[in-house]
Structure formats: structure tokens, C-alpha cells
């Protein structure tokens, strides 16, 4: 049974400039202990989709229009705020892109890592402090002096990579079943990124946590994820196991995305570019949202709704031409 099953999720934002359909019918699932990658360009809805079922979309202007997100049997979309609060930070944790804004500058690192334990598990301060210290050790924030100096540090005293380690310690200290990591390494240098990704993997193996990794970086996906979901214009274009997605991508958007990376071409060659711009999400898109930019689009693509359908075991695509064997 999946740990999390998101079904036909729609999150719209009601703004002065019209209704923005940021997430428009998204379904995916996460199995216990696995890593699901969600990849997409800015504005594709990859963050909003995950913030939605966690109850973190500001409302107004945002609203979950339809859909469900079953976590261990409970529909998070319908769950009251109090129930969600007891789940967030305890059974589902999050880490975000910018560890500077996500940490409280007035609180010591130790207090911040202790906080989830004090709030959710109501343990004594001494026990929370001990577990927080162990967690900081485990994420590589070593206590050099042996006097709990790492617990007493403030975020500004740490580098970006160290702050992200603190975030990971905070997220995992309650032993959650699911970790949602939204661009966790985007703000970091590559050498630090490598360390942080290795750390997430190590902790995941140790604790059996399932991970949703949201990123725009296909290289990061290739090395860390079991399965991948590709999003575009608030919808899922393709979903497949990682190797299959990279070695036999079916959706034209997925293929275009891979071809436009500098590493896809030899130096001196022109990179593949996707013509045009992503669609405005303020009006309803009838056909496939990628059709106006797609090299393979036919008239039917602009008229018939593009629905995610299986094209192989565990491999789904929303391209109707692929589904009908035309591509």
C-alpha cells in the first residue's frame, strides 16, 4: 500500500488577474522508503502540489479545488488543521531550498532541533537535548570541543551547507515516514550539494524514510530517485522509474527537456531549444498544455484532454499520440 497517494489534486489561486490553475489534476503516489523525484521548470506546480496536501498554501488566495491525498489511510486534504499540525514535522517533514530563511535566526541550532521533539513527543528537555545532539552528530555537525558547542551555535555562524545539515537534522529528529525536500541543494555549491545528497540518502537508509525530492536538476534526479514524475503547467506529463525515464523517455516534453541540457550535446553544437513559452495558467487549457510548443503536436492534441495513461509497467505518459502508438 502506498504511503502517500495523491489523487486528481487541483490547487487554484484566485487573484485579481484571474484564476491561476497552478496545480490542475495531479495524481502520484509514494511507497514506503522509496525516493520519488518531481522535476519541472519554474511555475510547473511542483512545489504547490506538495505544499497543498500539507496545508501550507495560503488561503486566500489559494484553494484546493478538488482531489485527495491519502497518507497512511487519512485524507490530508479533508483533515482539520489540528490534525495536520500533528502530522507535519512529526510524520511528514519538510526541508526547503534556502536554509537561511527556513531557520530562526534568534534560536540556537540545538533549540531548533529540539523543538519538534518538545512539540510532538512531549519528551523532557533533557531527553530532547540528548536526541538533538545525537542527530546533529549524525548529520555531520560535529561537536569538536565536547561541550555541546554545536548545539549552542546560531544559524548565522554556519555556512550554507551546515545550515542545510541542521535543517535535515530538524526534519529527521522525529523519525518521520515521509520527507518532502523542495530543491534542498539548489542554493548550495556542487561539492556541498554532493555531501547533502549523500547525507539524505544515508539517513533515509538508516531510518527507512520515504523521500519526495522536488528539483529542476535532472542530474540530481538521476543519482537519487527510484521513480520520477515530470510536471509541466500544473500537470503531470510523464511518470516512470528513473532508468526508464532517462533511457526511454516517451513524452515529447521530457525528451525536449533532456535535449536542452548542455551535457546532452557536444561543445560547439547548438543546444535543443523548446520554442515559445509555458502557457498562461489563468485560462483553462483544453488540450495538452505542451501542444503549442511541441514539435509533434497535431490538431487533436489541442482539442482532446491529455490524461496520464500507462504505456508500460509503471510507466505513464499524458501524450495522446504516444498512447495511440503514433510516436
Amino acid at each position: 500500500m502506498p504511503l502517500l497517494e495523491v489523487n486528481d489534486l487541483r490547487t487554484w489561486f484566485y487573484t485579481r488577474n484571474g484564476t491561476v490553475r497552478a496545480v490542475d489534476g495531479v495524481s502520484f503516489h509514494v511507497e514506503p522508503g522509496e525516493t520519488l523525484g518531481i522535476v519541472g521548470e519554474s511555475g510547473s506546480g511542483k512545489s504547490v502540489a506538495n505544499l497543498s496536501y500539507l496545508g501550507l498554501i495560503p488561503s486566500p488566495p489559494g484553494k484546493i479545488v478538488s482531489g485527495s491525498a491519502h497518507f497512511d489511510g487519512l485524507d490530508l486534504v479533508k483533515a482539520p488543521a489540528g490534525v495536520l499540525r500533528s502530522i507535519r514535522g512529526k510524520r511528514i517533514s519538510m526541508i526547503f531550498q534556502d536554509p537561511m530563511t527556513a531557520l530562526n535566526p534568534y534560536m540556537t541550532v540545538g533549540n531548533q532541533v529540539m523543538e519538534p521533539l518538545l512539540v510532538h513527543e512531549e519528551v523532557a528537555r533533557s531527553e530532547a537535548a540528548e536526541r538533538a545532539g545525537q542527530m546533529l552528530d549524525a548529520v555531520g555537525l560535529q561537536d569538536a570541543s565536547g561541550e555541546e558547542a554545536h548545539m549552542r551555535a546560531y544559524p548565522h555562524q554556519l555556512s550554507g551547507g551546515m545550515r542545510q545539515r541542521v535543517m535535515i537534522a530538524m526534519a529527521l529528529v522525529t523519525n518521520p515516514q515521509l520527507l518532502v525536500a523542495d530543491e534542498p541543494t539548489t542554493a548550495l555549491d556542487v561539492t556541498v550539494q554532493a555531501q547533502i545528497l549523500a547525507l539524505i540518502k544515508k539517513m533515509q537508509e538508516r531510518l527507512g524514510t520515504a523521500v519526495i525530492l522536488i528539483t529542476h536538476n535532472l542530474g540530481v534526479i538521476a543519482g537519487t530517485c527510484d521513480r520520477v514524475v515530470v510536471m509541466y503547467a500544473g500537470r503531470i506529463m510523464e511518470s516512470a522509474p528513473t532508468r526508464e525515464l532517462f533511457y526511454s523517455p516517451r513524452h515529447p516534453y521530457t525528451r525536449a527537456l533532456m535535449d536542452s541540457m548542455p551535457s546532452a550535446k557536444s561543445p560547439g553544437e547548438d543546444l535543443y531549444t523548446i520554442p515559445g513559452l509555458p502557457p498562461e495558467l489563468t485560462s483553462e487549457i483544453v488540450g495538452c498544455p505542451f501542444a503549442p510548443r511541441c514539435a509533434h503536436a497535431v490538431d487533436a492534441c489541442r482539442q482532446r484532454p491529455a490524461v496520464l495513461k500507462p504505456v508500460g509497467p509503471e510507466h505513464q505518459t499524458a501524450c495522446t499520440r504516444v498512447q495511440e502508438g503514433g510516436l
Partner: protein
Amino acid sequence: MTGASAKSLLSLRDVKTYFPVTRGVLFERTVSVVKAVDGVSLDVSRGEVVGLVGESGCGKSTLARTIVRLEPPTAGQILFEDRDLAALSPREMRSVRPRLQMVFQDPYASLNPRMTVFDAIAEPMLVHRVVRRRESAGKVAQLMEQVGLARRYMKKYPHEFSGGQRQRIAIARALALDPQLIIADEPVSALDVSVQAQILNLIRRLCDERNLTLILISHDVAVVRHLSHRIAVMYNGKIVELGEAEQVCAAPRHPYTKKLIGAIPVPDPDKEAARLRARQ
């Protein structure tokens, strides 16, 4: 590379840029210095694309800013067309500026939100009096066309454009004075992959067509490798490795370059698995 200066458009000779760290408000005293650029020598020949890679804080942006004298160098020579920029007065520097231009990372911050596309692109030409005001519209339209922007956008403001289009405007503005050398500091880092590809193609085409000399600064080795003839790797204010782009990426020699190249995730699951195994 001795004797290279004859052909070199730009020659850096032991360039140093130090920043003092001060304490105290009233009786300010220097307690230490940050050696942001610490003895960089580099020859760039005409028409060449040199990539400058390194992690944050390695001094690559400070070096760029030093070359165009946005930061005063602490020591060293910056020979551009055989004049030492480090020794020029601000007035003399002004006459050189049209020939070396910069493109910055964030096209949201580098364009004045109150200036139309026309104003932004025409401004450098009017300031340096290379066109008359009434001739400027034609020149601006021509530049816009070269960077792939329709001329009907001339009266629009930056907020009406996407990030990729803004970067095109910034590039058109940099090209307006027909520079010899362009320094692009992370020109595509703020852009999505598909837009990044468009801008990289544009930069490469412009370099070819205009025989531009380009110093391309990026933390993304794949981007730099794609465009550059040679790559310089910076670490701690120094160039630790310099060589042909393919050579540096495929067979890095300096331990830091090895570490840097080895840390880059490859968008290919099997190669990536092999890379991760090799790291352990």
C-alpha cells in the same frame, strides 16, 4: 605563456583585489584583509571564449568586477588592448568602457524597471555619443533583432518580460557599444533549463558572428564546457588550473578540479551510479 601578449586582447598580470576587514565605527581600523583575488595571471586572445569556474566565494565575480574596474585592484596589471586598466584615471577608464561590457546574472535586478527596452538599449549609445537620438530607434531595433526580440516590444517595460527575454535585453544593451570583450557573470544561472539553452545558443552565435571575446563565469561546469575554448578553475582567489575545455573537464589535474568535476551530478542514471560509487 610569455610572448602571448602580442595577440592577447586581455592580459592579467598578477592581479590582486583585497578587501580590508575593519572594526570600530569612529576609530575604524583594519584588522585583516580578505584576499578575494590573489595573484591571477591570464591571457585571453581575440575571439576566444574563456570559462571561469569555481564555487561561491572563490573570487570569480570579484575578478570580473576588477577587470572592468568596478573594484579597484590592489596590485597587478590589467592589460586590455595593451593599455593597463589598473593605472587609468576614471576619465581615461570612461573612454575604454564601451569596449568592455558586462552581462550580469539577475536580469530582474540589472535592468532599470522604469526604463523601457528602448531606453535601456539606447542609453549606453547616447551616453557615449555613438548615435544621435533620432537615429537611435533604428540601431535599437537592429540590436533587438540580433538577440531575438521583436521590435514591437521596444516601448515595453522589463516587468512585462520573462527572465529569458530580460537576459536578451541585457545582452542587447551590452552589445550596443560594439564591445571587444564581454564578461558574462552567471548569465544563465537564474533561468530554467529550456530558456538557458536559448540564451546559450544566442551567446555562442553572437560570439561567432561578431568575433567577440568572452569571459564566461559560471558555477555550472556543463554550461562553461559547452561554450568555452579554455577553462580556468578558481579556488581561494587563485587560478588553480587552466587548460583546453575538454582537457580540464575530461582529465582534470589539480586536486580541487578533480573534486569539483567529480561532484557534478550527471543526468544519466548508470553513469551517475558509477560516479557515486567512485566517490565512496
